[in-house]
């Protein structure tokens, strides 16, 4: 395993675009955290995002993992291009001739996906922990370390998503087209969900029972939007006499669905590679 990781990181570390994208990715993580903690002074109105309770433990675990996951698109570009560049440079062929098996090739890519996901999770954990310790109203040990399942959900979500990118990179062979395909797939899934919800089933709970098995939807389900959980929003809703009751929790079967997709994508990449003549 170390040998395969070593090989893949050798390929990545000299690539300028990989370096730039990774720096942007981890840079934005920290920037967003900084931005949220800046005190704005708009027209004499003192405003700080951090005061709205978004950095309170344990809510911060949910809030940060949700917003950080938007940044995953930067790493997605890295993953897609590390797959498709092997095709366009024809280095995949040379790797195989040099004595790598097709299985080793896919594994080296998948291990890299795992490492990227783990590093991202560790990073968001540390950033959240620091922000929370600075701004949270509650800093009791038991509160800090509650709701940590969002970390696990975030990790699984990234692994699933990056495996999807890896599969698309192999399937489409061109990075731009693979990213385009990802976007088209996302629209396609949204349309299908919309049709199911409003035209065929007509009930959101029943629709969700089916659509939770869609690849991107299943990943989105892992960390649901945290906005309506905010005190400000909750109290506003109370004044409007509407109840927003959402299920924010991370469920084990949702994790299982994403893990199943991950397995399908990795297995599919290998099958695809084995079937193809290069």
């Amino acid at each position, binding site marked *: 395993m170390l040998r395969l990781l070593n090989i893949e990181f050798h390929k990545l570390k*000299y*690539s300028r675009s990989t370096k730039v994208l990774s720096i942007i990715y981890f840079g934005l993580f920290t920037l967003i955290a900084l931005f949220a903690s800046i005190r704005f002074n708009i027209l004499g109105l003192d405003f700080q995002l951090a005061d709205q309770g978004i950095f309170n433990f344990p809510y911060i675990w949910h809030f940060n993992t949700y917003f950080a996951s938007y940044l995953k698109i930067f790493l997605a570009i890295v993953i897609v291009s590390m797959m498709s560049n092997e095709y366009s440079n024809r280095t995949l062929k040379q790797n*195989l001739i040099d*004595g790598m098996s097709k299985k080793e090739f896919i594994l080296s890519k998948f291990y890299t996906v795992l490492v990227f996901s783990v590093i991202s999770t560790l990073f968001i954990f540390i950033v959240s922990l620091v922000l929370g310790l600075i701004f949270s109203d509650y800093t009791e040990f038991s509160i800090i370390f509650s709701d940590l399942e969002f970390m696990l959900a975030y990790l699984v979500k990234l692994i699933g998503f990056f495996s999807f990118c890896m599969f698309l990179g192999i399937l489409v062979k061109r990075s731009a087209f693979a990213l385009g395909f990802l976007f088209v797939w996302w629209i396609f899934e949204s349309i299908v969900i919309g049709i199911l919800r409003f035209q065929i089933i007509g009930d959101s709970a029943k629709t969700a029972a089916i659509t939770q098995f869609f690849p991107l939807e299943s990943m989105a389900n892992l960390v649901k939007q945290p906005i309506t959980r905010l005190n400000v929003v909750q109290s506003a809703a109370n004044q409007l006499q509407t109840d927003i009751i959402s299920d924010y929790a991370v469920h084990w079967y949702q994790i299982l669905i994403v893990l199943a997709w991950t397995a399908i994508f990795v297995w599919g990449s290998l099958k695809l590679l084995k079937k193809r003549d*290069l």
Partner: protein
Amino acid sequence: MKTILTLNNLTKRFGPLTAVDNLSFKIEKGNVYGILGPNGSGKSTTLGMVLNVVNKTSGDFFWFDGNESTHNALKKVGAIIERPNFYPYMTAKQNLNLVCKIKNVKNAKIEEKLALVGLLDRKNSKFRTFSLGMKQRLAIASALLNDPEILILDEPTNGLDPQGIHQIREIIRKIAAMGTTILLASHLLDEVEKVCSHVIIIRKGVKLYSGRVDEMNASHGYVELKAENNDALISALENHTWFENIKLDPETNLVKAILTKPIEAENLNKMLFEKGIILSHLVKRKESLEQQFLELTKQNA
């Protein structure tokens, strides 16, 4: 003798097209082999199959004694097929370091191999800045990193300028002189003739000949003759057991006859002189590989 590669009825079909048809041969250690065939005859597909990048349709092949998986055996093989493929954003040295990691060998030999192909002074240049000839030489250096049991080269001089072709051939000869087994695929006959001891000729995926280059044609060569009276010459030749397949080339007005025995030119001249035919032109020739190759591929057309 140690066998390096064995092919048994290896076949590859692309849809209705049979690119490689029941191909069988063996590569023994220490020889320099040429796979010869016109463009599109299945050379690259054959090499692709044994190198794990093209899936076979039927038949089988194995490396060495067949006890190892193909990808592990390939770690002991050096191969470049078609164009040289490296990571354009890495330098020559970084690329070779990566190959060492894949092949699981120490990277101590990188400088030595770069020196062998004359790229040592460019070791820190990015691959994308290389000319085609340099890329091809880097590919050879890369294939040699593990001191392979066999070096496989597919059209190594394709697309190069005369100087580049010369450099590559010099390198190949140097490597062959070190005792490395080489398998060279080419459609260039003089390349094979100059470098190889054995040849495998394929056309449309079918093997036409395999064996030593010098045994390829068992004939004793042919003679080109001319006399004042060509008709008398032809009838004299036809009545003699030394010759067969006597033809008059209308363009050059030369009579061409295949020899059935090893005949010295002097004896032939003397024999004809005794019959009252005085030659104004006498050339005895061995067919070149090119003529033999054309002959072979024509017969099977």
